[in-house]
């Protein structure tokens, strides 16, 4: 206990120039990289590196919802599983769902529920799997941001991508996108997710205390950051399908949304049971 007290007093999270431990300014994000369509067996997938976070997201569906009693006759379910790999943190995490990951799964699935056109797929479920391979604070934001790319990659109809970023308070200063040290030794952490086009907030949580003004500042910073992330998400999707784009640019006129003629040339009846029918 004494040790921790000691560290907390010694830990300077922000230096005299207003730079943080990793050299960032208060409103600066960690480096982000997103890759869409990385898994072959999933309907849609994405991989994201966000500072020290490494997150893989996979989407299946819409597919038949199981168990059957969960099916909703009016709309699709949006189900999510957030999971941390045992090796994602320095003290091995015991595998399996725990209180924290159940909570995160719940809030993430609710965030996506707000944007997916669920009414188009009654009785089905859209399943989102988020695997955290390496954690460095802000994994729920990274997972959500990656999952939203995966969802678009799966071709699931939705209003917009969802983008997420946390902000918090360290050494009394409001900063965006906290890293592990800042999260552990800081004063507050406030992850949020928005629908960038409308500015709708679909996830908002807070750990620690912020005054009303600090909270306003934190929200402002998160929103500004999500707009930058939104462009990265869109870029990842565009890059994934750029080969097709090049083909389109090379090889001319508009594709007819081909009118279906489904009368294939009739085959001779070679059925065991012949055409005698009814």
């Amino acid at each position, binding site marked *: 206990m004494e040790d921790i007290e000691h560290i907390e007093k010694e830990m300077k999270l922000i230096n005299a120039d207003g730079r943080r431990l990793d050299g960032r300014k208060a409103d600066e994000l960690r480096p982000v990289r997103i890759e869409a369509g990385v898994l072959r067996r999933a*309907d849609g997938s994405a991989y994201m590196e966000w500072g020290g976070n490494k997150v893989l997201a996979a989407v299946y569906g819409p597919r038949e919802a199981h168990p059957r009693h969960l099916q909703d006759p009016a709309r699709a379910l949006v189900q999510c599983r957030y999971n941390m790999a045992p090796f994602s943190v320095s003290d091995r995490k015991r595998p399996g769902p725990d209180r924290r990951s159940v909570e995160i799964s719940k809030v993430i699935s609710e965030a996506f529920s707000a944007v997916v056109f669920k009414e188009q797929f009654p009785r089905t479920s859209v399943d989102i799997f988020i695997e955290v391979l390496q954690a460095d604070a802000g994994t729920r934001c990274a997972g959500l941001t990656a999952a939203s790319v995966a969802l678009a990659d799966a*071709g699931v109809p*939705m209003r*917009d991508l969802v983008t997420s970023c946390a902000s918090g308070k360290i050494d009394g200063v409001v900063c965006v996108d906290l890293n592990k040290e800042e999260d552990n030794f800081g004063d507050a952490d406030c992850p949020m997710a928005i629908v960038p086009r409308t500015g709708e907030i679909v996830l908002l949580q807070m750990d620690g205390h912020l005054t009303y003004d600090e909270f306003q500042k934190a929200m402002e910073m998160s929103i500004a950051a999500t707009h930058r992330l939104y462009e990265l998400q869109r870029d990842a999707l*565009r890059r994934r399908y750029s080969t097709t784009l090049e083909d389109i640019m090379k*090889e*001319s006129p508009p*594709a007819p949304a*081909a009118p279906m003629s489904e009368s294939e040339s009739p085959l001779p009846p070679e059925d065991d049971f012949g055409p005698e*029918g009814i």
Partner: protein
Amino acid sequence: MQGSGSLRPIVIPGEAVGGPGLKPGPGTYSEGGQLFAAQLGIRNEHDGLVSVIPLKGRYIPQRGDAVIGEVTDLGASHWLVDINSPYPAPLHATESPWRVEFGDTSRYLKVGDVIMAHVLSVDEIKRVQLTMQEREARRLNGGMVMEISPTKVPRVIGKEGSMISLIKDLTHCQIYVGQNGRIWLDGNDQDTAIAARAIRLIEERAQAFGLTEVVRELIEGARRETRGPRPS
């Protein structure tokens, strides 16, 4: 950037695809007079109707679709058919081309059998019913079934069926294409393999133009190769 007529960039969900005066088609939604993409795909405008042609997605059954299904379960008076969609599709005995006695369904179709059928009806909660009363509906014996992305089916069929009849003519295979992305092929082994390769090529390069010619070249090249050493 080349000729603007050929530039058809992909759109991402939430992207604006049109303003007032345009109608929202499949893959789009309107909000406050503006149209936005609901799906990842390619923007298409036709007679003031804006739609997004999806690049990916599941098969959602529609009335009248020809589908290729696999029988997964038997009932006393129906079969359950997997049609590669989120919804199970029952085929009632009265919709089959045979006179089926109650409890005698297994005489006609067994689990694992592949059939060509049509979607008889889809209601508002997406309960699907199949029928085999149409002319080309049948049990598919022999041959092979391959699966492609259902969004690419229109390209495999081509305008007025041009693409699929080209493949049929060149490979002498019997081919059925289901709207659900399943394709049944039958012919000799080599021809079937060539046809399957051609279909994979179409799926891969679905957005490309002049695709018919590329496919023709592929098939002719492959046939020449396989027949090469033998003097004709």
